[in-house]
């Protein structure tokens, strides 16, 4: 998506909540299922812990490892896609999640990058995040996602 020998995107959203509540929303499977298309994000949440995305039907689409973690401020995940062969073949990407209090809100920054140009993985992942972040914001600010898919 961008020039040079890497592909990346940076997404930012401001959510009126606390860093602690947002961190909880990002790390508890019961919580992630509510705003992340039913996906459970599972990990021990320590440096070196395994990390995975599991769908309700048991499919594990992405695996990885926690490279850095500093609750409730920052984490870096080695993100390996497992489901689609052509995206899996691109190898691991890095996802950095940063939380920064700004006034009465928290600035959440998601940076996703891979060391290769024109990455299909980055393109695929970039499409999903805005929806997930918008749902997450609604859930934390109002207690429900804007419009459930039913």
């Amino acid at each position, binding site marked *: 998506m961008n020039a040079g020998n890497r592909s990346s995107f940076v997404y930012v959203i401001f959510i009126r909540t606390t860093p602690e509540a947002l961190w909880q929303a990002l790390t508890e499977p019961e919580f992630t299922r509510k705003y992340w298309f039913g996906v459970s994000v599972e990990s021990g949440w320590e440096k070196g812990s395994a990390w995975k995305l599991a769908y309700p039907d048991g499919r594990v689409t992405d695996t990885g490892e926690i490279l850095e973690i500093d609750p409730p401020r920052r984490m870096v995940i080695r993100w390996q896609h497992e489901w689609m062969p052509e995206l899996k073949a691109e190898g691991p990407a890095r996802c950095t999640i940063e939380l920064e209090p700004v006034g009465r809100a928290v600035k959440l920054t998601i*940076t996703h990058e891979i060391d290769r140009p024109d990455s299909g993985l980055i393109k695929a992942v970039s499409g999903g995040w805005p929806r997930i972040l918008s749902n997450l914001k609604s859930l934390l600010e109002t207690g429900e996602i*804007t419009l459930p898919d039913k």
Partner: protein
Amino acid sequence: MSDADLLFKALADRGRRKLMDRLHANDGQTLGQLCRHLDMTRQGVTQHLAVLEAANLVVVTWRGREKLHFLNPVPLQEIYDRWIRKFERPRLAALRDLKRRLEGDPKG
């Protein structure tokens, strides 16, 4: 100004929408790279980028000494959720009902 006001103000300019298109085509550009393909002064591009940044439509990160500009589509998703999606619901519900009827399952 509210977040929504900043957002719609930022979108209400052809030059800024063009800048967003340039970033969509090629994300993570420097000011110099952005100026190269636009019929705007460097100063004009700088000012437009500041408005887009204030509206959270552009995010800036530093890579070494380079300041890179990234398109942030998250506020556009919020516009979609707030202003567009609810108008699609009746149509989606009609399609769902049609599918149920054609497939002969009264409950779906």
